[in-house]
């Protein structure tokens, strides 16, 4: 058993884990004790085990494992002998010999109980102070437990391996001392805990960025400021031409092919890194401040009325703002050609959006409410990513613009944004948004957008009690026009609504009287039937059920007319 472990010269996962397990300070074995075999429970508690139990339990499972095993080991030294034959330790040995090392995900039930008793015995050896050859056998249980504990991918395994190595090197001198020393245990445990922490942090951002898929981050190329600015100029010039989409369309395809991202926002994703690397000294200070607030919105709007040259400056500013507002991203290298196609692609949409925004400045306030609502939506998405606040301000501008026109382009831009938000850092989205509002040129669909705008303004107005009431009445007015089978005037429909209003009042009064007459406070079906009878709708010839069948859809008919079903049941129950 020990020989096989000793023969492992290379630091495999098993050996390292074993070592960690041995060096790891035994924590409170309280949790595990209940699950352990009763034999070991019977052992009298030693001060060492008591000390172990007094320690905190907030340790990773591995530590608790080791703690339990090691804790139990000290008082149960004498049990080692009886556990020799057909013991979990021997079983673990066999497992280590036969099972493949790379089996990261091992059934816990198999591995956990097995290494625990083995740890017990190993730590028993360890308790005998200072024998270096015992260190190696102690490494085995940790390595055996590692596969079960490390339930992550191979990448993580390798990470932990290296970390383990480092940790083991540090933990080894500690392990030399007797196990009963709490400081050593705490040191090892803290080491492992720190190791665990280190494992967690690098993985988290990746998963947050792309929860759906786990892919390697796209390769980022170095950015050239001059080329980038030139591209911006070219973009604004190209987008200035009305209806000219072909030159723009060609550019994004290049970058799309470059990056095999699931969504079409790789351009967006790369662009922020581009911005990040762009050093624009002029506007950086202002942008960092304005980003947080919506003051950048008016700033952008000020830029929008200006011509493409100004837009370019605005774009550059925004780019710079993006670069500043992206502190967390350490991606300094990103292709600026990625940015360029992104800008070009957004240019068209941005143009139209900008067109409308410029033409509809006066109705900005009306759309402001919607804009804020829109801003909240993308912002909610953005919260997932890291650089949230900076982008949120800039994104608010975009909804302002797009809310005005409610353009299809704006909508497509935002859904793209929304979908990309959880995946791609906000900086990318921000970049996407920045060029969108910045470009202002002859809009392709400015007219329909402006036509659509008044309707949006109306809906954005305050909602009164009258509104839903009117909607309900108009619902019946439409039925009136259907029943009449003749063309009607608008005034006639309004008259119908007035009549309906009066009719409702009368209806409620009648029902009130009928219910009061029956001594009830709830209006029931009998009251309704009585009302219809008095109105002359229900006669001896025509019953209520007939009317229900004639005029109501099947679903309501099933609800109203009792019908017998299988199982000697009637629905609805009478």
């Amino acid at each position, binding site marked *: 058993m020990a020989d096989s472990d000793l023969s492992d010269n290379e630091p495999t996962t098993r050996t390292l884990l074993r070592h960690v397990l041995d060096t790891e300070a035994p924590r409170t074995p309280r949790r595990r004790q209940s699950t352990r075999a009763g034999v070991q429970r019977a052992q009298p508690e030693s001060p060492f085990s008591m000390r172990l139990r007094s320690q905190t339990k907030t340790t990773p499972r591995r530590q608790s494992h080791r703690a339990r095993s090691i804790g139990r080991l000290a008082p149960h030294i004498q049990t080692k002998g009886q556990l020799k034959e057909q013991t979990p330790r021997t079983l673990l040995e066999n497992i280590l010999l036969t099972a493949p090392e790379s089996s990261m995900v091992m059934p816990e039930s198999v591995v956990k109980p097995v290494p625990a008793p083995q740890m017990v015995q190993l730590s028993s050896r360890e308790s005998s102070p200072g024998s270096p050859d015992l260190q190696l056998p102690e490494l085995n249980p940790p390595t055996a437990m590692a596969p079960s504990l490390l339930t992550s991918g191979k990448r993580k395994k390798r990470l932990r391996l290296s970390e383990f190595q480092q940790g083991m090197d540090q933990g080894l001198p500690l392990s030399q001392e007797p196990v009963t020393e709490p400081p050593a245990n705490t040191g090892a445990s803290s080491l492992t805990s720190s190791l665990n922490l280190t494992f967690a942090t690098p993985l988290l951002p990746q998963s947050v960025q792309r929860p759906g898929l786990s892919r390697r981050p796209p390769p980022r190329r170095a950015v050239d400021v001059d080329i980038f600015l030139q591209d911006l100029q070219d973009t604004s010039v190209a987008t200035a031409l009305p209806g000219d989409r072909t030159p723009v369309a060609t550019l994004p395809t290049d970058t799309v092919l470059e990056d095999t991202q699931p969504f079409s926002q790789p351009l967006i994703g790369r662009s922020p890194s581009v911005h990040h690397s762009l050093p624009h000294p002029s506007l950086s200070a202002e942008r960092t401040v304005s980003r947080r607030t919506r003051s950048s919105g008016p700033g952008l709007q000020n830029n929008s009325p200006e011509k493409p040259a100004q837009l370019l400056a605005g774009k550059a500013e925004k780019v710079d703002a993006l670069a500043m507002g992206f502190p967390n991203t350490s991606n300094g290298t990103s292709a600026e050609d990625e940015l360029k196609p992104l800008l070009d692609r957004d240019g068209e949409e941005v143009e139209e959006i900008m067109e409308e925004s410029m033409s509809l400045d006066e109705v900005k306030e009306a759309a402001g409410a919607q804009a804020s609502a829109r801003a909240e939506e993308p912002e909610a998405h953005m919260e997932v990513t890291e650089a949230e606040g900076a982008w949120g301000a800039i994104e608010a501008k975009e909804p302002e613009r797009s809310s005005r026109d409610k353009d299809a382009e704006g909508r497509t831009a935002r859904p793209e944004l929304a979908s990309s938000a959880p995946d791609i850092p906000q900086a990318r989205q921000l970049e996407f948004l920045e060029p969108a509002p910045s470009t202002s040129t002859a809009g392709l669909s400015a007219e329909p957008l402006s036509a659509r705008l008044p309707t949006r303004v109306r809906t954005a107005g305050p909602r009164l009690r009258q509104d839903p009431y009117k909607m309900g009445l108009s619902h019946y007015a439409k039925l009136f026009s259907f029943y009449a089978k003749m063309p009607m005037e608008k005034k006639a429909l309004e008259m119908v609504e007035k009549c309906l209003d009066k009719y409702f009042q009368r209806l409620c009064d009648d029902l009130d009287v009928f219910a009061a007459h029956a001594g009830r406070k709830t209006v029931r079906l009998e009251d309704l039937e009585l009302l219809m009878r008095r109105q002359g709708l229900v006669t001896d010839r025509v019953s209520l059920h007939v009317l229900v069948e004639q005029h109501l*859809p099947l679903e309501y008919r099933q*609800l109203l007319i009792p019908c017998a079903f299988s199982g000697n049941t009637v629905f609805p129950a009478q």
Partner: protein
Amino acid sequence: MAVAATLSQRRRVKRKAPRGFLRRVFKRQKPHLHLGTRCDLLVHLNCLLFIRRLAEESRTDACKNKCGIIKDQHVLAAAKVMLKKSRG
């Protein structure tokens, strides 16, 4: 139940009754009263029948005046008659 099964199978109901609207209107008019479970469906039926009769009446009025279009005075005259009829 069979009823529930059929209801779930066909989600879309043609010419749905605005049950919420009717309940709200009744509550506004008579806050001290409660409306029964399926009473709003019958109220909807009542409204349908009322509107049907109103439309018929206004159509005959428009045809009497030899108008191809139903105007509000036709509707007004028809409503006067109908509200009298459906006094209850």
